[in-house]
């Protein structure tokens, strides 16, 4: 039982969380019922069998996971999630509004597709694709902002220097620049030095990068509005 609690249950919880949409309500109910057998025994003594604490604890965790999934489904009945555009669609729409080259959306899509593909995962390829997305966005924004504001870009052909420019024209704050620079450095280190970033970690980075690009585009549109047509 302890081996199950240590090896199987954590994997099941993880798989249940990750592929929650595949589990119908009846399955969730069945899991909950099974968990109750372990978690309520200590209180009721129905079977007279003392389950190991590790089993009871993991059953509690599993039951909590199921309740969380059920609550999320309940939430979805109240909040119309279909109205929320996905980051990629949003990014595409923002690029169109900003009059920027749509190749940026393609760069992001390529990175997303690669990171969600089922083949062998190479951190270097994933990292390079994400870094390209950032580079393409920064280059395009710097070029456009130079035209709009008349503030020339005096930096070298380096992404870090383009980030400084974006800060000086008010697209991001110093704290944000530090944060996004840290993300950029993380991607570079993981891909250049071939560290062992797992695919899940790169997916977190990919979401952060996508949201970051959306933020940049929104700020760019604000800036464009301030400077007029």
């Amino acid at each position, binding site marked *: 039982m302890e081996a*199950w609690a240590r*090896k*199987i249950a954590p994997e*099941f919880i993880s*798989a249940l969380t990750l592929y929650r949409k595949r589990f119908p309500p009846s*399955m969730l109910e069945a899991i909950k019922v099974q968990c109750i057998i372990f978690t309520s025994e200590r209180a009721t003594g129905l079977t007279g069998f003392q389950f190991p604490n590790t089993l009871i604890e993991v059953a509690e965790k599993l039951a909590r996971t199921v309740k969380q999934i059920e609550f999320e489904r309940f939430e979805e009945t109240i909040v119309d999630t279909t109205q929320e555009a996905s980051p990629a669609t949003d990014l595409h729409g923002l690029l169109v509004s900003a009059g920027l080259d749509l190749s940026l959306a393609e760069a992001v899509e390529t990175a997303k597709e690669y990171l969600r593909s089922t*083949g*062998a995962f190479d951190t270097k390829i994933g990292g390079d694709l994400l870094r390209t997305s950032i580079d393409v966005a920064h280059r395009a924004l710097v070029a456009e902002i130079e035209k709009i504001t008349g503030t020339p870009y005096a930096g070298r052909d380096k992404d870090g220097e383009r980030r400084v420019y974006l800060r000086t024209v008010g697209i991001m704050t110093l704290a944000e620049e530090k944060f996004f620079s840290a993300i950029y450095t993380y991607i570079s280190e993981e891909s250049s030095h071939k560290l062992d970033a*797992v695919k899940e970690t790169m997916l977190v980075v990919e979401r952060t990068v996508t949201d970051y690009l959306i933020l940049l585009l929104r700020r760019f549109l604000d800036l464009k509005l301030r400077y007029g047509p």
Partner: protein
Amino acid sequence: MPNLHETLSQILEGYRANIVNYDRTVDLLEALYKRLQYMNDQKTFFDVLRSELLSEPYSHFTPPHPRRSAHEVIVRAWARFGPVAELPAIVFALLR
């Protein structure tokens, strides 16, 4: 394609022997499953996986020990692309 049972066993054995990692093993299982065109083969695929899972001994070894058990990759693969309706019953059946 070689015998399905043998191919599946080979993938799982690669994982048990620490030749391939967790993600790659699940990807290989999914790739193999997607190559199966007939429903009967697809059913056999999960019959074999079920049998492997239920007969798999628990390994208390931790890396870098050369052997490990394949429970986790089977559970993950089943949740990702298998008939999930059967999964809770199988998982709780492992509680022995």
